[in-house]
């Protein structure tokens, strides 16, 4: 076992402080890698079963249409076709999935297949199962669907009129709406020296598009009535809560299994409709069925990130640049079905004032359905959209008032000495030092030689811009925030599970409730357990993946919302501590001493200070499991323990919409310099820095990898990645041909730095992280704004995604966007 493997080559900014003993904090080799680099991972599509059938969905070509008839007879005649499933069958065999919203959203009926109407292009209308993948697609083409096209609704603001209604049962397109009002916004406006108004900002639709598309292999056991779902659902606990009642079975009838998952990024949280269709097919046809989603399916009909329009943003500002808060009307477009929504209507409130000391915030929030793909909690979920708003506010205000974007940030940031800091809506920012992170980021991109770089760019005919993106990565949800949306819901707090056992030959075996998709859970788990049990990570067997049969899962199990380092490892630590206690008890019983006299070191339990009196793990495992005669009767241990980590949360105050919504706040401060070609609008990022503070880092290399990846996704979202629809509701970026994600050549030189502000609230002082990459979108928008215009002149960057053509349009007609902003000075 090597203790340290690779030191990153680039200089990292290291926080001075104690060096922690043990494996935590070290870059131990990832346990997952050996299988993955040999192509020996097991992803759902790698599995086969005897006589399995392949599922192909028949998808609506219409964005909005009544389904008048579905005729599967020709498909069934094709040799090799095993069977079909239609919306009519689904409506009989299942109940609609439960909705999280209060009315009108509560009345929406969402099924495994379209029932009665198709509501977006790609909406699955029927399913076919056949002997080969190709045949299934052939047969799907033979299913005849008679549609009556309906007017198409693609604009969220137009959706508010309810002239075209997607869900007649709800009688409105509004899923949820509510007003959040903290502090005294009117008084802040009265007290302000300047009031800046921004008419409109728009956060575009994109998704982090995991490279592995969704899918599952489902087997139905007729004897037990249980389905086994080998799939890549990244939050199967919640998936089961949706699916079991819909299928009218108990939750234990759904066994979810996954080993390796090819990225999730939140896009694999709402797979319950497709998985339910596969369960029905497996039962109906009495054979295993496999559904593999293809790229074009994923883009058109799986999930997108939330699209959000911000209207009438009003910002009161003091003469010295102190911002007092803001008000906004937000309209969130969740596409055709809410599914995980309307949680996005509250999740943003975890970061209500962004990184800033703003005390007066009023948000009028409405979420609507449109005839587009449904959404899901895409990495940075809902906070990213909101933080983009806060960052646009800071830069637009700075631009209009002639303030330095660095100084104005530092003036308004929550200060290091103010932590833990309570936001106006009761969230507790645990720790951090935003100004320091910003200084490091600026240092990394050579902020001191900025003017030189600007002159150099200008000499080459380029426009130069620099931008900052500050963001918070709030982790470990308090699901009690859902009560603010709907007090009837029975969700609050959070939990995660791990089990640890010492087996007969001395192996330490850990199972996790989390469903990893590349975050290295096996590795970091082994580090934590090794430090507690006094052995090395190599001695720890962490089972790969997830299986509800392991009984190491709870209601909120999964990998999402930046929480593994807190909830996942919290559970691991709790279980390992319990096991360590039992091992000491056992050793003490053998040696006839007190457990307090026992220490666990070098893979042994021994009497402190006496290396001769030692029991190797193998002996402990063997004694309890196979050689236990004569052990004291009152020795109540199993060497097989299960721990549920439960973060310390209260239910929020529903009246005031007030409370602690999340446990930790990691920080990401990014800085970016770019050059714009004024002839074409083409731009290139020339310097980039990302500074991360996620508290104690368990495995720095993994943390840095998360920073790189999240940043790449943000840069994609800022420059090219956008889901655009034509007026018929056809998605114009349905695959990687037109939806351009960053390639190796597209990525700018990237530097990373970090500090570690230990969280006072978590078992390891760590914070969940990985979702702060949105800072990249903010930084690029700010840098473009900086490049395109001087103070009070030039265009306003008002959309989150700015492909070249938008930049060119802004350069061509600056007045078009400039008119979005007005300043009232007193």
């Amino acid at each position, binding site marked *: 076992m090597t203790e340290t493997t690779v030191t990153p080559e680039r200089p990292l900014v290291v926080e001075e402080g104690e060096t922690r003993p043990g494996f935590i904090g070290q870059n131990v080799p990832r346990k997952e890698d050996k299988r993955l680099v040999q192509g020996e991972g097991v992803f759902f599509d790698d599995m086969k079963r005897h006589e399995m059938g392949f599922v192909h969905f028949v998808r609506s*070509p219409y964005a909005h249409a009544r389904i008048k008839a579905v005729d599967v007879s020709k498909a069934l005649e094709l040799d090799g076709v095993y069977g079909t499933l239609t919306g009519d069958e689904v409506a009989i065999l299942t109940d609609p999935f439960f909705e999280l919203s209060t009315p009108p959203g509560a009345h929406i009926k969402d099924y495994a297949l379209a029932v009665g109407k198709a509501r977006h292009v790609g909406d699955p209308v029927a399913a076919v199962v056949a002997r080969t993948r190709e045949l299934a697609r052939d047969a799907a*083409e033979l299913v005849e669907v008679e549609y009556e096209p309906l007017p198409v609704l693609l604009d969220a603001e137009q959706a508010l009129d309810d002239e075209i209604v997607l869900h007649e049962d709800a009688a409105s397109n509004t899923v949820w709406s509510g007003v959040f009002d903290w502090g005294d916004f009117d008084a802040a406006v009265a007290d302000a020296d300047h009031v800046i108004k921004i008419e409109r900002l728009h956060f575009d639709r994109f998704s982090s598009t995991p490279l592995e598309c969704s899918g599952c292999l489902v087997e139905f056991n007729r004897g037990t009535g249980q389905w086994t779902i080998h799939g890549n659902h990244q939050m199967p606990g919640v998936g089961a809560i949706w699916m079991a009642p819909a299928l009218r079975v108990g939750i234990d009838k759904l066994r979810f299994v996954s080993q390796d998952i090819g990225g999730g990024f939140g896009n694999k949280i709402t797979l319950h409709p497709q998985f339910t269709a596969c369960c029905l097919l497996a039962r109906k046809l009495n054979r295993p069925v496999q559904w593999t989603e293809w790229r*074009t399916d994923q883009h058109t009909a799986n999930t997108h990130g939330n699209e959000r329009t911000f209207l009438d943003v009003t910002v009161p500002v003091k003469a010295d640049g102190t911002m007092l808060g803001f008000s906004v009307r937000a309209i969130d477009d969740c596409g055709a079905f809410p599914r995980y929504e309307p949680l996005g209507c509250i999740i943003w409130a975890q970061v209500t004032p962004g990184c800033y000391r703003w005390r007066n915030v009023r948000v009028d929030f409405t979420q609507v359905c449109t005839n587009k793909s449904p959404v899901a909690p895409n990495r940075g979920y809902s906070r990213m959209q909101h933080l983009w708003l806060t960052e646009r506010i800071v830069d637009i205000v700075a631009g209009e008032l002639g303030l330095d974007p660095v100084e104005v940030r530092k003036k308004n940031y929550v200060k290091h000495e103010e932590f833990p800091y309570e936001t106006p809506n009761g969230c507790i920012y645990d720790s951090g030092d935003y100004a320091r992170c910003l200084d490091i980021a600026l240092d990394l991109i050579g902020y001191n030689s900025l003017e030189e770089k600007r002159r150099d760019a200008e000499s080459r005919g380029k426009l130069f811009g620099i931008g900052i993106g500050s963001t918070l990565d709030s982790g470990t949800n308090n699901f009690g925030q859902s009560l603010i949306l709907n007090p009837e819901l029975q969700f609050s707090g959070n939990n995660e599970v791990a089990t640890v056992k010492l087996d007969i030959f001395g192996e330490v075996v850990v199972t996790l409730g989390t469903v990893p998709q590349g975050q290295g859970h096996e590795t970091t788990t082994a580090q934590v357990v090794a430090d507690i049990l006094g052995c090395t990570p190599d001695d720890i067997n962490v089972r790969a993946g997830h299986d509800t049969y392991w009984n190491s899962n709870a209601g909120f199990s999964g990998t999402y919302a930046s929480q593994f380092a807190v909830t996942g490892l919290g559970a691991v630590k709790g279980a390992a501590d319990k096991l360590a206690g039992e091992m000491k008890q056992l050793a003490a019983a053998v040696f006839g001493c007190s457990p307090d006299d026992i220490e666990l070191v070098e893979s042994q339990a021994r009497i402190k200070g006496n290396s001769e009196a030692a029991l190797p793990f193998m002996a402990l495992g063997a004694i309890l499991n196979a050689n236990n005669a004569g052990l004291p009767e009152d020795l109540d241990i199993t060497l097989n323990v299960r721990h549920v980590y439960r973060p310390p949360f209260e239910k929020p105050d529903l009246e005031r919409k007030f409370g602690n919504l999340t446990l930790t706040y990691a920080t990401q401060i990014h800085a970016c310099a770019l050059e714009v070609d004024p002839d074409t609008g083409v731009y290139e990022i020339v310097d980039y820095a990302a500074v991360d503070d996620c508290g104690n880092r368990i495995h720095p290399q993994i943390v840095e990898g998360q920073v790189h990846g999240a940043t790449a996704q943000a840069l994609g979202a800022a420059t090219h990645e956008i889901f655009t629809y034509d007026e*018929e509701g056809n998605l114009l970026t*349905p695959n990687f041909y037109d939806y351009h994600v960053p390639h190796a050549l597209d990525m700018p030189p990237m530097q990373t730095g970090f500090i570690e502000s230990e969280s006072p609230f978590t078992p390891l002082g760590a914070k969940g992280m990985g979702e702060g990459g949105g800072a990249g979108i903010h930084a690029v928008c700010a840098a473009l704004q900086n490049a395109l215009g001087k103070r009070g002149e030039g265009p306003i960057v008002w959309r989150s995604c700015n492909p070249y053509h938008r930049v060119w349009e802004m350069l061509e007609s600056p007045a078009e966007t400039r008119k979005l902003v007005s300043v009232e000075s007193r």
Partner: protein
Amino acid sequence: MKVSGERQFDAPVATVWSVLNDPAQMAKTMPGVESFDIQDERHWRAHVKVPLGLGGLRMSIDFEKMEEREPEFAKLHAKGNGVGAIMNMDTSFHLSGAGGGTHMKWEADVHILGPVASMGQRVLQPIVNQQVSQVLGALDKQVQEAKGT
């Protein structure tokens, strides 16, 4: 997508009208028609394989005559169903006599749905133009033949 244009025919209005309103003759102007059924005088159906160079796009197209004011105006709706594409088209033409010949003003509003619409954005417009110019060329020929008979 809207396309429109004007065209001059060296034939009297009545001849042009007769060609434009005879489904059988019109079928000869459309590229890739494999079969053609006339259901009644207002409805007909064509099975076509639109030649796209890379391979054919098979489609069955239902035509319905929506409006006609002989001999100067007609409006037609066409709905095409193919795998990967659904097409809806409204097209109309105005005929007027012009010095012994005929002047035709035409327009068409074409809507395409399905994967072809998503994938072929930047090629649809040129392809539609291509098809239109082929149809018009063939129409010329039909008109000349009709004139000859």
